[in-house]
Structures are given as C-alpha cells and as structure tokens.
C-alpha cells in the first residue's frame, strides 16, 4: 500500500516501496505500446510540472505520463538564473495549491527545494531532480530497465561512471540499487567524488578499467561541461580519454553487460557513439521506461495499492 504524501528521494523509500513502483510500471508500459495510449484513471486530476531548470526529457516524460492517465497536465517553466529573484518558491507553490493542483512535479537547482515545497502545500510533491541531491524518478526508471533486462538485483554489480560529486542521478541510483541488493561501484576522478562516499556502502574506483571488470551494468553519467571551467579536471579531452566509455572498455565488463545513460549525452565525451548506439545500450529503452515508471508513480500517489475490493 502506498502511504507517502510526497516522493522526495529514494533514500527514504523501503525496498518494498521501490518494488511496488517497479511492479506497477509493468502494466503501464503495456499502455504506452497500445494504439490508444490513454486510460481514464486520473480523469479530473491535475498534475503541475513546476520546472526551475530547463529539462525537455523529464518534463515531457511526466507530461505524457499524466496525459496517458487522463490527468490534466500543466507546465510551468520558471526562467530564473537566481533562486532569490522574483516570487518565492513557497508563494508560487501556494498559488498552484489553491488553484487545485493534486500533484506538483518540481525540478529545482537547489537541493532540498522539493522538501521546502512539500512542507508548505497540500498538493503532493514529486521531486523531478533537486540540485545535487536526488532524482528519484530517474533512478526508478534505471532500476526498472535493469530489472526488465536482468530479472533481479541480487548478485548484480552496477558501475556508475563519471561525475559522482554533482550527480543527483548517481545518488538516487546508489540508494536504490543498494536497497534492492545490487553491488554498487562508483568510478571517476577523485575531484568529482563526494566526500565520505565510502561510508555509503559503495566501492570507489579511480581507474575505469578496474571499475568495469565483471560489471553487469554500466550507468554512464552526463558530464556537465562547465565543471571543467571550475578546474575540477584539466580538459574535456583528458576526461574523455581517462573516463569515457568506449567499446574497448565495455568489453571489460561481463558479456552482455547493459549500458545506461540518463541523457542527454555528450557523445564522444563520457560515451563513445558506437557504445551509445550499440547492442548493449538500453538508452532508448530507458526513455520509454521513464514514462511507464512515472505513470506508476502518479497512479500510486493518487491513491495507493490494495489487492482487492469486495464485490
């Protein structure tokens, strides 16, 4: 049974809750594949996408997920470079609240912004990525993709490769994979590694070859190119040579290892084009699964999940 008002992060979810979402995403994915991609389930419910950061992929995914379930979806793109400019988040949230929003999906550059919003509004809040904190729906779709391909998580080794320091995708994936029983490795330059990451129960590698050896899944993170300007690594070229995933490196992983990437990709930087488009890549499948997982979340958050109702 789904009991949470909000979905703010994977860290606070139990393995049961994660599995509930993954299970509900299976029938949702069937709907996406039908000719008539619409069920009346959330008719009369409104889902507001409140995006303080540009995002095409996640916003469209949430929008379609809502529409396939017949919810009314509205996108609000707040174009501010500064978090202190203009109306406060709480005021914006309260405005949306009294307009009758049922669910607010928020993307924000400040870690913890969804928590602030959730504390002040009645509508349910879904975190669609906050700062360097969490991106729970991305991790859930990654988990769903892995589960579809591999069946289970126990005994799997998943390598997360790249800029762990700034990555909310990495954090959410680490929590989710660990809770479901997979072994997690992280790999990247030490200047892009968060402090104390070893305390999170992951193995830390600074050589990509070692990190890939025997891995079942490689999740490649997007490199934010502006990090280079801040001196966190010398050049994009060196990053690509030291850390980029190419065919030669993929071959070090287990045969048939899966390659994931949350997108959008910097082809030729963190991932080579032949790997991105290769047979082991599930990158396009992730996009489809993203819609299914978000449908499952919207469905669960609009009610819950009990087995049967007496007739």
């Amino acid at each position: 049974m789904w009991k949470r008002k909000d979905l703010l992060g994977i860290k606070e979810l139990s393995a049961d809750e994660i599995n509930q979402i993954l299970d509900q995403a299976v029938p949702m994915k069937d709907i996406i594949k039908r000719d008539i991609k619409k069920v009346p389930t959330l008719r009369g419910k409104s889902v507001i996408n409140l995006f303080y950061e540009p995002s095409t992929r996640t916003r469209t995914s949430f929008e379609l997920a809502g529409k396939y379930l017949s919810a009314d979806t509205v996108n609000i793109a707040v174009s501010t470079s500064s978090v202190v400019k203009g109306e406060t988040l709480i005021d914006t949230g309260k405005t949306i609240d009294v307009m009758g929003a049922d669910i607010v999906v928020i993307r924000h550059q400040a870690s913890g912004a969804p928590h602030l919003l959730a504390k002040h509004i009645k509508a349910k809040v879904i975190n669609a990525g906050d700062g360097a904190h969490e991106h729970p729906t991305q991790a859930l779709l990654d988990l769903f993709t892995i589960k579809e391909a591999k069946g289970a998580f126990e005994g799997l080794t998943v390598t997360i490769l790249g800029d762990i320091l700034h990555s909310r995708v990495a954090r959410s994936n680490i929590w989710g994979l660990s809770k479901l029983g997979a072994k997690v490795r992280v790999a990247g330059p030490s200047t892009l590694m968060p402090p104390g990451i070893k305390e999170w129960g992951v193995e830390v590698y600074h050589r990509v070859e070692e990190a890939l050896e025997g891995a079942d899944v490689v999740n490649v993170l997007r490199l934010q190119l502006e990090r280079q300007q801040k001196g966190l690594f010398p050049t994009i070229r060196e990053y690509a040579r030291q850390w980029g995933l190419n065919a030669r490196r993929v071959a070090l992983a287990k045969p048939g290892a899966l390659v994931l990437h949350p997108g959008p990709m910097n082809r030729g930087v963190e991932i080579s084009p032949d790997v991105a488009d290769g047979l082991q890549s599930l990158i396009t499948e992730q996009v489809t699964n993203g819609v299914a997982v978000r449908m499952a979340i919207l469905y669960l958050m609009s009610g819950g999940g009990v087995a049967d109702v007496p007739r």
Partner: protein
Amino acid sequence: MFLVKGGMLIDPAAGIKAVRDILLQDGRVVEIGEHLEIPEGAEVYDATGKLVTPGLIDVHVHLREPGLEAKETIASGTRAAAMGGFTAVCCMPNTNPVTDSLALVEAVQSIVRRDGAVRVFPIGSITKGSAGQELAEIGDMAQAGVRAVSDDGKPVSRAEIMRLALEYAKMFGVTVISHCEEQSLAGDGVMHYGPMSAMLGLKGIPAAAEEVMVARDIILAEASGARLHIAHISAKGSLELVRAAKARGVKVSCEVTPHHLSLSDEAVSGYSTSTKVNPPLRSLEHITALRQGLADGTIDCIATDHAPHTLEEKAVEFAAAPFGLVGLETAVPLILDMVRNNELDIERAVAALSSNPARIFGLPGGTLRPGSPADLTVIDPDLELVLKPEDLKSQGKNSPFLGMALIGFPVLTMVEGKVVMRDRNLLVD
C-alpha cells in the same frame, strides 16, 4: 537594597562555589556571606536550589540596528539577552552602515541608552565598511570605548591588512576578533563539507577553510604581539592551532557557540534553514574536540553569535537562505546540558560565560566580589521549557531549538542593580 538568598553562588573569578547570600545596593555588590541578615527594607529573592552567577556576557551578537531593524533592534535584541540571562552583550559592527567610525559607535551607544535592556558594548569594524581594504578609525573608536574590532561575517582576506590591523589595534589595547574563513576554500558552500553535505547534495565548507586562516592569524598575532580573538571556532584543527599557540605564549583567545557544541551537520538533513549557519554545524568528530577544548580551557568564551533574520529571509531554499541562527535565549540550557552530562564543570561554564569575556575584553562584571557591579544572573537548573517562536523576545525566530524540551533557564537577570527579568518575565518596557 536587594538580597539574593540561599542560592549556589558560582563565581570562578573569586574562587567561590558555595551556598551564599548576596547583598546588593546602589548598583554594586555590597556583601557576600552565609545567612546574611535581611536589612530592613531590602527586597529578598529566594534563590534556594538555584544557581547564582555573575551576569553572563555574550561577546558575539548581532543586534542589526541601525539599518537592519526588520531582523532585530537594540530594544528586541537586548530583551532577548535579558531573557537569556545575559547582562552584557558585544554587538558586531555589520549593521548598515557598518560601525567603522567614532560617530557610528556613538550612534549605537545612544540607541543603547534609549532602548537597551542590558549593557551593550559595540565592536568596531577592522576595515572601512568591512570591505577588507583600508583600516577603519580604530583609534577614534577605542576612545569611544570600543574594546575590540572585527569584520565579522566576512574574513579579512588579505594577510597584509590583517597584519596591519593587529599592529595598529595593539597600540590602543584593542583586541582583533577574526572571523576565520578562507574564501577560496569555502566557496559557495552552505554546510559542513563531509558525508552529510554529499548526501544532501549541498555544497560543503571544509574545516580547512577555517583552519588555514586560524593558522595565518596566529602567525600574524605572534609576530606582532597583538591580541587576537578567534570568533566562533568550529573545527578540530583550529582548536589544535590555538592550543599550541597558547602554549607558546601567543596572545590568542577564542570562543565557541552553544550550537556548535550541541548540533552536528546531521541536523541539516531536513533542509531546515535555521540550521544554516557560518561556520557550519560540523561533524561529530569536531563537536567532540570542541567540547574537550571548552572543558580543558583552550576555549575561553562561550558566545552565541546570535544572528536574527526575518521569517521571509529564511523561508527559502537552503542554498538561498542567509547564514545565522538566534542563540541568546537558548544558550544557558544548552550549556547546562553539558554540565549535567559531566562533560563540563559548572565553574568552567560560568567562566566561559562571564569572567573570561570580562577579563579578555576588559568589560565590567564577570565577578560578584564586593564592590563589583551588581550584574547578576540566577538560573533555575531544573526549569524545563519547550520554546515556541512566540516565546522568543528576539525578532528572529530562526532557532533550530524551537519545539525541543530544554532544561535550565535563567529566572533573574539584574543589570547594575536593576532587575530586568524576573521569573521569566521582562521588567523593562
């Protein structure tokens, strides 16, 4: 005449820890003794079962006036001080304008005369406008009674300016208070750099950001022979530097805040902006070191760094909120908690809250020896309260301790013989 009867007197400067009666008259302490006779017409305060201390002195508060009255005023801030048992506070110069000249010091002093509920000693700035470029008029300000200068809130980034400030302030017997933060290391961090910041996805301020500048300032103070006071020390490494410097005879002192002693960076986990403070709440390892440093005397003073902000300023995303929390009204229970847990002697606690600040900054009070000012605090060590925002007399409600059960509150605050707070009620209008 006023007689405080039957309380446990803790006066570290006088070496007293015993049940004593204290007789006060005309703003002075007249007599201390066992079972003093009640003089005719004297008002008696029964302090049986309570602690009686020299008036508490907070050497680090932000009263925000002039210029930032939406956050706090001298009236509201000194009332908060009275509730917290403080008879004197030293206010930081980062008002608007910055207190960097004689005229501005006198302006603050005149507002204090009109509105103040307790004694207020203004701290001047080190540099003009606290901009870190040119020295402020430290000599003039010293003549107006300023005992210390600080660019608190901002570090003095240029080492040469700090060297000059120490040399110059020394001539006037003025202590330089340093807010130690190497800005290229602190960056735009908002909490302690470590596993918690990594987990929360918030940018971290490493302990090294403080330690590097503590090292620099100790070296400069040693070279000049000037008096240096390190504000709100928070890192283990800083403490070791101070300990070693003191052992060499460097004229360095330091203070710690109650919140750095009692809260770790885990308090940030709900993104509550009242836990956003600079220096940041550190990890357990640092807290343990700070408690040790206070207990062994390496840390001289407990100061609150009382930093009120408006609700609106704090009701934003964590990264966007201003640093600071209000501490005047919760300091005593937080420190008594350490005493109850046998981590700190009560004498050491009172020394850090009263006699040491008085001695280091040359302020009146700090002891109740006969002849001293009648600045006195009575604390009920068993009084348990759960503070709500409306209970705070400070305009700032940005306290991480609201809603928590705290034990041990001041029940009497007397300034120069005048009772300003009695039984948790303010007696000033």
